C-alpha cells in the first residue's frame, strides 16, 4: 500500500472548515479528557485512602441532654455499663467527637511551654481506655491509657488530663527528627505522650485528617456525648437497633440524636469526592462520544460527497483496502493535528488547575494515554463510513447522476 500524502492534503483543503472543526473538537476533548481523568484519579485516591478505622463492625449513638438537669456523667457511665454487658459487643467507649463526621473539636499543639513557637493544628478526641480498641486502631509505640488515668466528667471541677496518645502523623509533625514518645507537648495544659497510634481519620474532615490527639477524658461538658461501639462481626445492625431502643428510653432528660454505623459515616464522608468523580467521568465520556459522532459525521459526509471520485479510483484499480486506508489516514491526519493542539491545551489547563485548584501537576502518562485513547476511538469512529466507501462500486464512475 502506498501512501501519497499530497492528494490527501488536497482533499482536506477542499473542506478545510470541516477538518478544522473536527480538529478543534478533538483538541478540546483531549484537553478535558486528560485533565478530568487526572482529577478523577486524585479523587479516587482520596476515596481509597484507608480510614484506619474498623468501619465494618462499628456504630455510634449520639446522646444529648434535653435539659440542664441532665446528668451527663451519670448517664454516660450507665450507658457504658449497659453496652459492655450486652452479648455480642466487643468493646464500647464514650467520646466527645466522632471520627469521619466532622463532629468534634480541634486544637493547636506546641512543643514549647507558653504557646511559644510553631503551632500544629490537630483534631482532638476524648475517650477512655477502650477507645482505640473500639475504633480498631493499634498502638505502634508506648502504651494505652490505664483506667485510673481517665478523667471523669465532673461539672465545674474537671482536672486536666496529663497524658495523651497521638497518631503517627501528628507525632511526626511535632517531632520530625526524634521519638515523640515520652515528650511533653502543650496546648491549654502540658501533657506527656504515652503512646503513638497508627494513623486514622479523626473527627475533623479538613486536611490533614490523620492528625489526632487523644485525651484520657470523658465528655459530658456540653450536655452531650457519643457512644462508640464495636460488635462481633455480623451483629452490628441488630445491636444498633437494640441499643438505640434501650437508651432512648433510659434517660428522662436525654435524647438519642443520631444512631448510625461507621460505614454510613464513611460513605457520607467520601461521597463528595466520589460524586465529583462520577460527574466528571460522565461528562467526559459524553464529550468523547460527541467527538466521535463528529468524526463519524465528517467522514460520512466526505464519503458521500466523493462517491464518484472513489468510484473512479476503484475503476482505475484501487483495492477496497486502499480506499479504507485512504480515509483512515486522512482522519489520522486530523486526529494528529487535534492531538498536538489538544496537548498544548491540556498542559495549559493542567497548569491552571495546579495554580487555582491545588490539583497536582498533570502526569505525562495521562496525556500519552489520552492521546492513544482519542486516536484509537477516533479511528474507530471513521472506520465504519470508510468501509462503506470501500463498498462503492467502480461502475459509479461511469454512471451519470
Amino acid at each position, binding site marked *: 500500500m502506498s501512501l501519497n500524502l499530497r492528494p490527501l492534503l488536497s482533499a482536506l483543503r477542499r473542506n478545510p472548515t470541516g477538518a478544522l472543526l473536527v480538529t478543534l473538537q478533538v483538541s478540546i476533548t483531549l484537553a478535558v479528557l486528560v485533565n478530568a481523568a487526572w482529577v478523577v484519579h486524585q479523587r479516587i485516591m482520596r476515596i481509597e485512602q484507608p480510614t484506619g478505622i474498623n468501619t465494618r463492625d462499628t456504630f455510634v449513638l449520639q446522646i444529648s441532654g434535653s435539659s440542664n438537669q441532665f446528668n451527663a456523667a451519670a448517664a454516660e457511665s450507665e450507658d457504658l455499663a449497659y453496652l459492655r454487658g450486652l452479648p455480642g459487643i466487643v468493646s464500647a467507649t464514650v467520646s466527645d467527637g466522632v471520627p469521619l463526621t466532622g463532629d468534634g473539636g480541634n486544637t493547636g499543639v506546641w512543643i514549647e511551654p507558653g504557646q511559644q513557637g510553631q503551632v500544629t493544628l490537630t483534631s482532638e478526641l476524648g475517650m477512655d481506655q477502650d477507645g482505640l480498641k473500639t475504633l480498631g486502631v493499634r498502638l505502634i509505640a508506648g502504651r494505652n491509657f490505664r483506667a485510673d488515668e481517665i478523667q471523669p466528667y465532673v461539672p465545674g471541677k474537671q482536672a486536666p488530663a496529663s497524658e495523651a496518645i497521638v497518631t503517627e502523623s501528628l507525632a511526626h509533625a511535632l517531632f520530625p527528627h526524634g521519638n515523640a514518645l515520652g515528650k511533653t507537648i502543650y496546648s491549654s495544659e502540658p501533657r506527656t505522650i504515652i503512646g503513638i497510634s497508627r494513623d486514622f481519620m479523626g473527627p475533623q474532615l479538613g486536611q490533614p485528617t490523620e492528625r489526632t490527639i487523644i485525651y484520657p477524658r470523658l465528655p459530658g461538658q456540653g450536655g452531650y456525648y457519643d457512644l462508640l461501639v464495636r460488635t462481633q462481626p455480623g451483629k452490628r445492625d441488630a445491636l444498633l437497633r437494640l441499643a438505640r431502643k434501650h437508651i432512648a428510653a433510659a434517660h428522662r432528660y436525654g435524647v438519642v440524636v443520631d444512631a448510625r454505623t461507621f460505614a454510613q459515616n464513611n460513605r457520607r464522608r467520601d461521597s463528595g469526592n466520589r*460524586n465529583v468523580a462520577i460527574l466528571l467521568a460522565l461528562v467526559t465520556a459524553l464529550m468523547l462520544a460527541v467527538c466521535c459522532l463528529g468524526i463519524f459525521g465528517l467522514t460520512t459526509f466526505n464519503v458521500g460527497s466523493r462517491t464518484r471520485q472513489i468510484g473512479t479510483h476503484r475503476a482505475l484499480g484501487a483495492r477496497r483496502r486502499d480506499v479504507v486506508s485512504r480515509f483512515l489516514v486522512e482522519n489520522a491526519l486530523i486526529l494528529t493535528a487535534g492531538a498536538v493542539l489538544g496537548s498544548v491545551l491540556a498542559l495549559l489547563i493542567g497548569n491552571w488547575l495546579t495554580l487555582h485548584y491545588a490539583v497536582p501537576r498533570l502526569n505525562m502518562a495521562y496525556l500519552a494515554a489520552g492521546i492513544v485513547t482519542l486516536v484509537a476511538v477516533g479511528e474507530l469512529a471513521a472506520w465504519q463510513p470508510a468501509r462503506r466507501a470501500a463498498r462503492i462500486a467502480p461502475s459509479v464512475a461511469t454512471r451519470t447522476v
Partner: protein
Amino acid sequence: MLGYYLRLAVKSLRRTPGLTALMVGAIACGIAACIVTLTVHHAMGRNPIWWKNNVLYAVTMDSWDPRRPYDPDRPTVAPSQLTYLDATYLYGSDIPQRKTLLAFVQGALAGAPGQSAPVWAMTRITTAGFFHMFDVPFEYGGPWSAAADQGPQPVIVLSHRENQRLYDGRNSVGRTILWNHLRFRIVGVLAHWDPRPRFYDLTGGGSGDFGGSARAFVPFRWGSMLHLFPIGSMSCWVAPGAPPLQTYRDLLASNCVWITMWVELPTAARRERFLDFVNAYWAQQHAAGRFQRPRNNHLWKVSQWLRLHRIVSNSSRLLLRIAFAFLAVCLINTVGILLAKFLRAAPLAGVRRALGARRGEIFAQHLVEVAVLALSGAILGLLLGIAGLAGVRALYAHSYSAYGKVAHFDLIGIAWALALAGVSTLLAGLYPAWRVGRTSPARYLKSQ
C-alpha cells in the same frame, strides 16, 4: 415567509433523520450538562435576600488570639462569629433599626397530642428581629414580641416541618409544648422557609451552609437562662496560664466565638454611626487589655458575606467549566455537521438563487432550520437537564456536600436553558447559513 421557511426546514431536517437526531442530541446533551451545573452553581452562589442586600449587615470583630490569626490561610479575616461578651454589648445599641443574635442549642420537644417520647429538635436561639429582618414567612401566628426577648418569655416558633410532624400541619398557635421539659407557648409556625444558601448562618463547615435548618426558635436569653451549651460552630482560644473552660459561666466570659450577629441599617449614615459605635467599643476594650490584634471591625453585606465564606465550591466551579467545554464541543460538532449538510445542499440553494432568491432569503431559510434545531435541542436538553438534576440529587442524597441539595429546577433554570440553547445554536448556525447564503447562483446549475 417565515411559515414557508419553517416548512422547508422541517422537510430538510426530515430528509436526514440521522444527522438531525445527532445534532439535536448533541445540542441537548451540551445544554443539559450546562443546565445541571449552572442551576447548582447559580443556586449555591445566589443571594437569597438580594432585595435587602444594602440594609442587612453581619458584624465581625477580631477578638482572636493576639499571637496567631483565626484562619492561618486568611490572616486578615476576623472570626465570623462573636463572643458572648461582645455580642450582648453590641446588641444593646439602638442605632440599628433591627438587630438579632443567632446560635444553636439542643432542644427536646414533648407534649404534643399523641406524642410518646420527646423528639430531638435542633433549636435556634435568636431574637424577634430575626423574623423581621430576614422576611421569614409565617403560616400561622407570627414572631414573638420584643418584650418576650427581654423576659425571656416561654414562647416558641415551630418550623413548618416540625409543626407537620407534631401537629399534622394544623394550626398549633396558642398551644403549649414542652421544650426541654419547660412549658412553652407556640406563638408562630413558619411557612416553608429554607433559603439556600442559608446566608444568615454560614458556620458549621460542610454540613452547615446548606444543611438542616432549625426546627424550633426560642428567645436568645433562654440559652443562658438554662445554661445550654451551643451545639453549632464554636471556636475557642485559651491564653497561656488561663484556666480551662469548664462551666457555662466560663463560656459566657470566655474568648469563645459562637454567636452570629446581624443588624439592619437602612441608611449610610446609620451604618457609619453603628460602625463608630463598634469602633468605640473596640477602643475601650483594647485599652482594657482585650482585642490585642489589629482593629478589624467589619460590617458585611449579604453578598459580601457569601463571598467571604466561599459558598461556591471549587468542585462546582470546575464542573461548570467542564460543562461549558462540553457544550463548546457539542456546538463545534453541530457547526461541522450543519456546514457539511448545508454545503451538500448548496446546489439547491443555487437553484433558488437563480429563481430570484436573495442572499438574505437563503440565509434566513437556513437560519430558520437552525432555529428549529435549536428549539428541539433546547426542549430535549431541558428534559435531560431535569433528569440530570434528579440524578445529581439522588447522587448527593447522603452526602455532607451541599452540591446536590440545591439541585432544584426553577424558572431561572428554564430561562437559562432556552437562552443558552437559542443563542449558542444560532451562533453555531450563523456561519454555515452565511456560507450557504453566499452560494453563487451560477455555480451548481450546470454540473449535477
